């Protein structure tokens, strides 16, 4: 049992750079070039850990301790969501709103850290990041509420425990709310239609602009936290909307099967993100609200559908 707990703790930070690597690899393949190996993010993080740091003189304690807290929030969320096993029914913190608002805590610190050094890019990065996350929160919460309404509880572990979604008559609301959730996850993790992760053009950056000032181990933590966040959204998308293969009991075979199911689903979703990123251009900043409002409407429609069927 303790083993599972430890596994739950370390799984997110271990796997997340791999997902980023896979997405980069798929994008490279679409640009018909070889691209870095999928383990490159591990090497980047490891190298950055061993580099010196230059911290700006205007930075206050917010700038210095933000990376640690942001990384910690991603770890905490990683613990609170069902990855491979859902029998632990972690009643105390495994709640949907805890996950949403802990991520909001991470964004809060990220935005403040961006503003702290007083550079023009950091300021604008935080303003855009906070705008996008404010607009995305509506769709985010409502899409998760849809599935919690179907199962009847907001505890994430029991949601992923009930294998009832896709097969029964709740198929349509789950799919619609997954679409809403997917848009929101692209927005929150700063993927393609909202923000270009690999851009050098400061004007269009949202996520990158905030970590322009970081270097050395703090930059490594920030990159790692962003990767964790990406993995968290992928894992939530996979395990809450399509909870196949989640280990129901604590025996080894179920756990291994759960893990493989998790890897498989993560790979598919990373491929989906890669395809989306290669086939779509980054849209203008003021086109984003329309996209986020559609995600909100989708989730609202999904909730409407849920009730009618079970009436």
């Amino acid at each position: 049992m303790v083993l599972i707990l430890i596994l739950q703790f370390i799984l997110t930070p271990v796997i997340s750079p791999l997902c980023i690597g896979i997405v980069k690899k798929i994008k490279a393949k679409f640009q018909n070039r070889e691209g870095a190996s999928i383990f490159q993010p591990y090497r980047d993080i490891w190298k950055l850990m061993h580099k010196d740091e230059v911290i700006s003189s205007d930075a206050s304690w917010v700038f210095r301790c933000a990376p640690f807290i942001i990384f910690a929030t991603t770890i905490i969320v990683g613990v609170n969501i069902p990855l491979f096993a859902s029998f632990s029914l972690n009643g105390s913190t495994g709640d949907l709103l805890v996950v949403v608002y802990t991520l909001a805590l991470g964004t809060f610190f990220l935005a403040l850290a961006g503003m702290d050094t007083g550079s023009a890019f950091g300021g604008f990065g935080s303003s855009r990041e906070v705008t996008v996350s404010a607009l995305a929160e509506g769709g985010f919460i409502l899409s998760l509420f849809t599935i919690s309404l179907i199962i009847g509880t907001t505890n994430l572990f029991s949601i992923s425990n009930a294998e009832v979604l896709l097969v029964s008559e709740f198929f349509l609301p789950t799919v619609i709310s997954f679409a809403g959730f997917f848009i929101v996850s692209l927005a929150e993790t700063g993927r393609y239609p909202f923000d270009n992760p690999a851009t050098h053009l400061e004007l269009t950056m949202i996520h990158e602009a905030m970590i322009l000032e970081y270097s050395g181990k703090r930059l490594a933590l920030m990159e790692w936290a962003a990767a964790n966040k990406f993995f968290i959204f992928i894992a939530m998308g996979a395990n809450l909307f399509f909870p196949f293969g989640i280990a129901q009991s604590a025996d080894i075979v179920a756990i291994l099967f759960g893990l493989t199911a998790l890897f498989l689903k993560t790979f598919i979703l990373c491929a989906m993100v890669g395809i989306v990123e290669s086939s779509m251009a980054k849209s203008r900043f003021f086109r984003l609200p329309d996209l986020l409002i559609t995600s909100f409407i989708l989730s609202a429609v999904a909730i409407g559908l849920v009730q009618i069927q079970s009436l």
Partner: protein
Amino acid sequence: MTNVITSEFGFLFLLFLYGIGAIGSLIFRKNDVLANRWQSFSAIIGSLWGIFFAMGAFVVRDMSFAFSSSISPLLSFSFHIDQLSAFFIFVISLITLFCSVYGIGYIKHYYNKYSIGALGFFYHLFIAGMLMVVTASNGLFFLIAWELMSIASYFLVVYDRNDANNVKAGFLYLVMTHVGTAFIVVAFLLIYTYTGSFDFTSIQSQAALIPAVIKDVIFLLALVGFGTKAGIIPFHIWLPAAHPAAPSHVSALMSGVMIKTGIYMMIRIFLDMLQPVPLWWGIMVLIVGSVSALLGVLYALTEHDIKKLLAYHSIENIGIILLGLGSALVFTSLGNTPLALLGLGAGLFHTLNHATFKSLLFLSAGSVINQTHTRNMEKFGGLIKFMPQTALFFFVGSMAISALPPFNGFFSEWLTFQTLLQGIASADIFLKSIFILATGALAATGGLALACFVKAFGATFLARPRSPEVFHAQESSLSQSVGMGGLAILCLVCGVFSGYLGSLFVNIGTKLSAFQAMPQILTISSGSTLIAPHGFGSVSAPVLFALFVLVVFTVIILIKFAVNKNQKTEIGATWDCGTNLTPRMEITSTGFARSIILIFAGILRPSVQHEIEYHDSAMRYFPKSRIVNLSTQDIYQSYLYQPLNSLITGLSVRFKVIQSGSMNVYVSYILIVVVVTIFLSQ
């Protein structure tokens, strides 16, 4: 000892304490220091006594006692303290305690500008008024206490009278509160005509006598009347004008606690007196709540005056409380009492939380303004290096208000979300869509509140100072830090022990008449975990907090020692693509919120004016200076209050003709009126 405190004598002694405080500060008005010391200490003792009284009254039993006076049969000074009023007394005294501690240091900078005695006098009257409002159980006596509270707070708003728009704000505040009081008076009269008495307990028993139509009218009147005091959206225009004008420790008290008296009376009337409640009342309150929440936070984003920003946030939080209350009303009318109790519990918990973190924010904003002598956030910047403690307290306050987990804001918003979620699971489609919109509004408000407080904290404390005043700002004095520190710790304690508080709010609810027939006791918290009914979800605050602390420490230890042994950190200049960075280049609060304002342009109607001055006006090529004026149009002023105003003035001009100036004509009017009234009085 406890039964001495919690007896009638205890409460009267409480009022007596504030009475001495008021008179004492008048006596000592000559010597400022003595007046300040006297007023603060008597307020502290009073609030401590109030806290003990409330806790005692909470545990022991609700009591009601009255001194009917011979003057007129209707008016009787009768108090009725049940669990609900005990809770509100607790909130009032708690916030007064910290505000008075803060006041000791804060009042120093008023020393030989205004009379400290007057400030003390009105301060004590204001608190006594509030205490009487939440305990009065006779309509007339309630109105007297309500009036006392409004008048005392008016004088506190116009206390800093050198500044012209403070006085104007005070005037607007007075007019708006009295418009609200007019609605309340009409409501009470209507109740009196049908139940025959002003006494709350008898109204409660004879509520059935009031016909349905009249009950709806009373509901609307009460909603408008108490809504004006609480500051819901269409009647909120006085709040962002009046709260910033008052001295900070008073505006903290006003927006932390005074607007809650409106909420208290709404609970008292809707849930206690006018039972049973038709469905559309709850829906109306829900709609008003979500509109106030959303628009409140949007207007807060457009503000660059720090205290106005906080005032608009009070409107937003009142909206959230109304969401809890509205869902409670909807569930009572549907007969589903456990969920109604959950809604009420959520509303009350958010009232307590909002009182703590909003007063913390106002106090820290007050000490910032105290040092920089301006309220404009564009002039701040980099204050964290000059006022680290105040920055930390403002940081804790903004984390609590944007509902981030370890602090108390999150847990009350968690409860509100659970109630709205249960509402969504309810049956008919129209009610469901209302609840969906309410949940959407609450979610969007959470996000926008986070945006607003990143802006407020960032623009004020982070990066480089944008004006010379910031350079010689010192840390706030000891008493100010103790006041703010206490509130910050309270925010954390309320958050971590929210489980225990949950059960407290449940048994407040059970005492109200709406929930008398409670089939089974609803448990919304066992031990330290908050539980939504029907096993809908649960969160345990201490475990979450422990998880936070554990993970943050392991991360720091791992990164600091295990991985990174010999790396040194240098202090360099901020890199900004090589340009030399000036403080003007960093983001300001208007710049920060500009993208959100453009997104919500339909509601906020931003307007931009350019004024360009050219070197020589003939050749318009080389602009010498360019002034850009960004502002958002206040649609209430131009679409609701301006036409109303012109209508009234137009009418009154037409009536002016009767003022002919000759006394005889006036006496003839009297005669005609006497005859006609006698004639008609048949």
